[in-house]
């Protein structure tokens, strides 16, 4: 959370075209506190509170972007992005193409997604893959504080509309973050951990769960290689393909529901690549159950992959049980 806040603060200090717009982001500091204190430093003209209208936020962001500003929009709960789909998908994503490159749409829409907070079905979804399917949009999904700041600054500098999916549970993650401004180029997968037995591709919060699972499996002598695509679109395929060629097995883990999720895209990328001939087991997906996220905390816990599920799934794949 502080990494994101620091990134936004530094971008606003450096470039006066950058501003933040969203619901309750000013005095209240945002639903999760990401923008806390920014209004004191930059004032209500650059930290803009809006009415409860996601379509309005998206429209304002797109309009500002094509007139030369570099806006950052915040969707309080990523679920609410559905209200702004027309603006984002019909307009923002296509403008540059339809105007023959004469209009850039350089905005970043930050969306807080994911389950685990007991916020029930309308406040817990993972909708990133909806936007992966829209040409013109870039989709970014950080998994660590370091990546969050570096990717956010890269996104702000990018001249394209960018959907920046944050996970609510990750706001409290601790990790080393340089104080200076730095960027992590969009479209670069990150090999988080090296291993020879299995390629585990995970996004967002599943990266840290995968790391915990890998620690446990290491004690059994199973070496998991973890890759975080970080940018779902454009996707950096090569590290994934190279890794599967090395390990011969692939497990994809994400929180979004399995059917129609990004895992299907990743699996297809692997199948269509040179790595196909090196596969020694089916590509497996471990993802959210095909259901709305339940309010009941126990049910909510079991609706999405947890560390123990990853351990079990990875072990079965490595041991040739699939």
């Amino acid at each position, binding site marked *: 959370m502080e990494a994101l806040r620091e990134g936004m603060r530094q971008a606003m200090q450096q470039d006066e075209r950058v501003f933040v717009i969203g619901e309750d982001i000013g005095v209240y500091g945002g639903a999760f506190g990401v923008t806390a204190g920014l209004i004191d430093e930059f004032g209500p003209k650059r930290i803009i509170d809006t009415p409860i209208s996601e379509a309005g936020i998206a429209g304002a962001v797109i309009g500002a972007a094509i007139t030369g500003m570099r806006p950052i929009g915040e969707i309080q709960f990523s679920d609410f992005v559905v209200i702004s789909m027309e603006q984002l998908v019909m307009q923002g994503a296509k403008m540059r193409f339809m105007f023959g490159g004469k209009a850039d749409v350089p905005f970043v829409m930050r969306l807080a997604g994911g389950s685990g907070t007991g916020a029930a079905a309308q406040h817990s979804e993972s909708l990133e893959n909806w936007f992966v399917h829209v040409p013109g949009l870039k989709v970014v999904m950080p998994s660590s504080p370091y990546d969050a700041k570096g990717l956010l600054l890269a996104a702000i500098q990018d001249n394209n509309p960018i959907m920046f999916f944050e996970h609510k549970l990750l706001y409290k993650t601790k990790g080393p973050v340089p104080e200076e401004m730095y960027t992590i180029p969009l479209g670069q997968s990150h090999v988080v951990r090296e291993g020879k037995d299995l390629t585990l591709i995970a996004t967002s919060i599943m990266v840290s769960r995968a790391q915990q699972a890998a620690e446990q499996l290491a004690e059994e002598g199973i070496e998991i290689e973890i890759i975080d695509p970080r940018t779902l679109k454009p996707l950096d395929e090569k590290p994934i393909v190279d890794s599967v060629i090395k390990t*011969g097995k692939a497990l994809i883990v994400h929180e979004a529901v399995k059917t129609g999720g990004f895992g299907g895209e990743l699996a297809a990328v692997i199948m269509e690549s040179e790595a*196909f*001939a*090196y*596969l*020694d*087991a089916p590509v497996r997906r471990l993802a959210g159950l095909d259901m709305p996220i339940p309010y009941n905390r126990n049910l909510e816990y079991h609706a999405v992959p947890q560390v123990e599920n990853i351990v079990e799934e990875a072990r079965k794949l490595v041991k*040739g*049980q*699939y």
Partner: protein
Amino acid sequence: MAKEIIMPKFGFTQEESEILEWLKQNGDKVEKGDPIAVVSTDKVSMEVEAPESGILDGIRYKVGDTVPVTQIIAYVLQPGEKIPESDSTPAAAHTAEITTEPKTETAQKPAPSLERAAGVSISPVAQRLADDKQVDLNLVRGSGKDGQITRKDVEDYLANQEKTGGKVKATPAARRIAGEKQIDLRTITGSGPTGRIQAADVVSARTAEAPAAQVKPAAAGSQAVNPALKVLKEIPLVGMRRTIAQNMQRSMQEAPHMFLQVDVEMDAAEGLRKLANENKMENSPKVSVTALIVKAVAQALKQNPIVNSQFTSEKIVLYEDINVGVATALDNGLIVPVIHNADRKDLKQISLEVSDLALRARNNKLQPDDLANGTFTISNLGMFGIDRFTAIINPPQAAILAVGKMNQVFVPDENGQPVLRSVVSFSLSADHRVMDGSQAAKFLTDLKNNLINLGEIVK
């Protein structure tokens, strides 16, 4: 539990292997995958690997013993483990039975495809069904008590064959490796779910099935041993010896041979070779006489594709690929490594491959690929002092060239005066089903001209 090491089954119809060498002894520490023994299969020596890490113990066979496949040959023990009680009687009976085989073999054995490796039982009904339907029981998994193959197992196998069209369940990686190593996936038992073959299964299979393994046993015509004669030694008909016996018998029985001979003055070729070797770069291989002959033969095959062919019951197939095998003598037999696409390789490359293959042949380091897909064979007994000889065609090829030693001979020059020439005698054995005398003669004449004008070809 003590881990059993079994004699692996490397080929489709392979029944037994000879133990050539124990690389580890009782009490030695072994790591999983370590080679522990060298065994001979059809012509190729293969290594048996430790199935897991531990201490090798309980070696049951000595060097020279012939062991049926899947028979336990030793154990890997973990600390505190012992060899199972039931193993206290070594399988000497097996050894005896097999090594005396040539002596007692008067009745023909059942076709090997229907035999089951020792130690697994088959219900009589299952056996009969398998015989009727020509099912290789080695491919059937037993579900009965102690793995006994029941009638249902054979029926299930047949139903599955029908359903899948004989397709094999294997992962993409397993298929890739099998393709690279020319291994028939049908010969491999999969360790994955529902018997799917995985990469590790193929890697452990390690060898291609030699084409010769398809041949029926040669024992049909063997004679009883004369009890009136004192026996010096018995050589079991296994491995390479058996393969040679089968192939040569088949060739002489099936292919009507015709023999043509020609003497070729090799002075020009020899000059070329000496020149090449004097001017060769350091580290580049010496050009050998064999390499020259391979080159000239490849060219002649290109000019006469009918010689580079194969006879089948329906047709004669002429091959575009020209893969020239060079028969190489070993202490215990004969092996034919192949120079693939010899027509497209230069002298230097051929020389390099000839010497590399010969070296690896003598060190038992040839891989199945090195022996595969020959389309013609050269047999050179010149180095053994033989002036000329005729060879038996190496099936399924259509011809073989026998090369004698280089002799110094006075021949008349154009004025009738004697001049000293280096002459080599070449004999072609050709399959008369495939070609006639005139075609074989044209090949030999072309070969002769190629050798005389080798400078033109290698230029």
